[in-house]
């Protein structure tokens, strides 16, 4: 038995890196410390895709890695509007090959931000993002606001490691001298811990932010008695708390991005932060979901200039979410082939998208069987990043951390698989050129 410390979790955007595990017979046998129940479940592992496979007459037939990679390359090289999607639950090293492949075949490369914090990216492109690293929050924040976010369910270690419950330099008593405000449609587990819970009407976030902004800037007289289901009195109390804080922090989640207003809700959340900043230190951060969704946004940006939904069909980057984003491409039936890596559109895309996917060739690269496997035409199993493969990832606050390899595997790593496909595609193109 070997004990491994400083293990980095490859589940959510918290990227906890102080986990201790035990490894015996090349298997993680125990998670001793540091991980939440979700992370623990991930580290302990689940049933795997056993072999590469190609669909033949409706059924998947096992094959070699070489054959699956060749088949994938053939599909992609022939496609006129291929989509390469996923990239958030794998390492940056694989993402880089993905961008290169997208350039090579004139594909659209998109990542899970598209259905997660893509609207936050659009918002940042409109107004910027006054933010900080999570350690700043841990050491300084005396007011934490979760807006449309339920870390108790989605980022279980977030409050303990970084925000409301954590202890730091100016916050050595933990939550004792902090205030927690939660804004949500439902009284969630997180909401139950709050000093102030603002139960907002579904879809009214935008209005509430504008009311807060007007109040923060001193125009409370124009604000009506109730906005989005919240009384003016409660709004004023929230504004008072914001002004009195030494270091205020807003974390927002899908409650803001998935609902009416989308990116503009986030614009308004950021504008609210800026308004609060005229009184005191205030920052804001999206609760990024996948452990490396921030990372693929980074890689895609430094390599193409744009963070997601990048259309390389003309040989240069055209970025236009709403047009070049996966949901639009699939619902509008634009794509004629798709590669999914480290993601599961079968579970997470709207049904309308899946309907189109069932009609075009689909390549899946993933360690685990999932709904996408049900319609994928080429299935390529891979090593689990952070357990069987190492590599760089970016935490939700864009801090880069290197995933560790804990056990050996015979599965190919994502980066190797992608390199294999890229090489095959180049070989096909060279032949065509002859």
């Amino acid at each position, binding site marked *: 038995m070997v004990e491994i410390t400083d293990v980095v979790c490859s589940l959510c955007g918290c990227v906890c890196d102080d986990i201790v595990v035990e490894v015996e017979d090349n298997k993680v046998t125990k998670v001793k410390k540091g991980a939440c129940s979700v992370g623990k479940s991930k580290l302990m592992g689940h049933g795997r895709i056993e072999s590469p496979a190609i669909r033949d007459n409706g059924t998947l037939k096992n094959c070699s890695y070489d054959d699956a990679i060749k088949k994938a390359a053939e599909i992609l090289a022939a496609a006129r509007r291929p989509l390469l999607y996923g990239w958030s639950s794998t390492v940056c090293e694989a993402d880089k090959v993905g961008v290169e492949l997208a350039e090579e075949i004139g594909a659209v490369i998109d990542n899970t931000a598209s259905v997660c914090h893509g609207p936050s990216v659009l918002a940042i*492109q409109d107004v910027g993002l006054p933010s900080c690293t999570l*350690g700043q929050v841990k*050491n300084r924040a005396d007011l934490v606001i979760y807006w449309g976010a339920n870390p108790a369910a989605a980022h279980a270690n977030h409050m303990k490691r970084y925000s409301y419950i954590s*202890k730091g330099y100016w916050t050595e008593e933990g939550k004792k001298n902090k205030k927690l405000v939660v804004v949500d449609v439902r009284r969630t587990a997180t909401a139950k811990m709050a000093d102030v819970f603002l139960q907002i009407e579904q879809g009214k976030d935008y209005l509430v932010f504008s009311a807060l902004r007007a109040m923060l800037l001193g125009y409370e007289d124009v604000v009506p008695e109730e906005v989005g289901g919240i009384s003016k009195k409660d709004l004023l109390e929230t504004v008072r708390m914001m002004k009195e804080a030494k270091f205020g922090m807003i974390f927002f989640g899908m409650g803001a991005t998935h609902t009416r207003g989308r990116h503009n809700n986030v614009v308004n959340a950021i504008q609210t932060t800026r308004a609060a900043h005229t009184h005191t230190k205030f920052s804001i951060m999206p609760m990024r979901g996948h452990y490396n969704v921030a990372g693929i946004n980074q890689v895609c*940006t430094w390599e193409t200039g744009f963070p997601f939904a990048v259309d390389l069909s003309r040989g240069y*980057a055209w970025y236009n979410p709403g047009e070049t984003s996966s949901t639009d491409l699939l619902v509008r039936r634009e794509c004629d082939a798709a590669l999914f890596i480290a993601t599961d559109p079968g579970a997470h895309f709207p049904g309308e998208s899946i309907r189109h996917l069932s009609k075009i060739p689909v390549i899946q690269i993933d360690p685990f069987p999932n709904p996408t496997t049900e319609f994928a035409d080429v299935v390529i199993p891979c090593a689990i990043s952070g357990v069987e493969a190492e590599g760089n990832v970016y935490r939700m606050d864009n801090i880069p951390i290197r995933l560790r390899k804990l056990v050996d595997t015979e599965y190919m790593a994502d980066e190797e698989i992608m390199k294999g496909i890229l090489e095959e595609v180049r070989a096909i193109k060279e032949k065509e050129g002859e």
Partner: protein
Amino acid sequence: MVEGELLIRNGVVYDPINGVNGEKKDISIRDGKVVEEVTNPKVIDAEGRVVMPGGVDIHSHIAGGKVNAGRLFRPEDGRKGRETKTKVCRAQSGYSVPNTFATGYRYAKMGYTFVMEAAMPPLAARHTHEEMVDIPILDNAAMPLIDNNWMTMEYVKSGDTDLLAAYIAWMIKATKGYGVKVVNPGGTEAWAWAKNCDINDAVPYFDVTPAEIVKGLAEATEKFEMPHSIHVHGNMLGHPGNFETTLATYDLVKGIKPYRNRPTMHATHTQFHSYGGTSWRDFESKAGAIADYVNKNEHLSIDLGSIILGDTTTMTADGPMEYSLYQITGRKWTNHDVELETGSGITPFLYSGKSPVNTIQWAIGQELALLVKDPWKLALTTDHPNAGPFIGYPIIISMLMSKRRRDESAEDMHKVIFDRAEYSSIDREYDLNEIAIITRGMAAKTLGLHEHGKGHLGVGADGDVAIYDISPEERDAGKIQKAFLNTKYTIKGGEVVVKDGEVVATPAGRTIFVTPECDDKLTEEMMVKLKDKFDHYYSVTFNNYPVQDAYLPNPYEIKAPWRS
């Protein structure tokens, strides 16, 4: 580096480090290095053309968290510089914040082969390295920010210079960095509470002043045989009247002895620090006062931070400064404070010749170059992209070489240029040798890279050569500008990477890093304090902090022994 022989024949060579000033001379390269002679070379005919060593940029923001945050939040900048992929080149995007590939190609086209990334937040050092690996052609290095760090401030307060030295040694090693970068010392920590500091203000909670921090870091740096001095962006950048703070900052390190014959402080993007007046209304140039100080003292080097008119993306670890700028423009603003270490701010900015303030800023950058007498004391920069994108260097070169061009340009600027700046009264014109100094020789020497093959063409130097398509007699400013934007040839490590202004090969660059060698006992003592910081305040663990070797596929190490 490429194997084989290359001969550059009959060029007019400007190699100021070796005292070669416009001599007709052959350059021989074998296996990537300059040699005495070659026997069976590939020949490039440079007859009548200007030949210089590969350019060396001492200060530019090309890689890392804030550069990429700049790209990410400016798709409108991204769509400006798009170029289709070719057989050799990846797709390009961006004007003021180009993608990594475009960064490499565009620098190489100007004849540059080394660029220093000027600000690496230690906690995010892996990010800087990941991007530098993706910048083709250029050799590079990065300077970690070590001035607003709690450890630094605590050691400065307690006066433990040796322990501070142990700390900076550990940090430079942990980040695979090059030297000590200072940005608004104390002020960025204060910004974590939405405050700022001037040079003699106490940093909130830490009870030290920026002046003490700068002095402490200079002393600690000189404990080692560091190739480069501390690299300082002082307090109050961009504020009217800041020249006094600037001069006071320069004075702080006057008595400190450098380990070798180089300055004890490099003061960067000096244009932003040379402001007179009490507000934007009576804002005026103090380039004269700054240049005067530089002329009279030997302990200091500067770079320009010269303005390029047009839209750009400003970015710095000086968080409060970016906030001030955003308050003026009301445009988008990103801020990213980094726990226990530093911060950063980013906001777009338009430098307009119609604005009196921008006009004076524009004048100041060039005035500094013209008023500092010894070109070995200054380097050409635009603090890319803060004062403008690096592809504007050829504009500045043509201005410095042509009084006529300056006079013509001044006519298009706001008329304050004639009463609140010295600009129009300066007649000096740079010659090509001086241009070679401020674009390669000085930077290489100041960074200590001339001892590692950069910035010159002596035997043993890297085979990095720029051949410009002009004759040494050329006086036409437009032609000069054009020639310096796109070389006839750029050669990197003996390989032709640019030909006739087109990128033809994209070899990977090397990352150069410094290893300060510190006494084990000191390190051990320092480590107790450092580990406590990780146990209680950092959000990553001690063992996950240092940059792993995997991030530097092409490393080049410079050892910096402890000075006995």
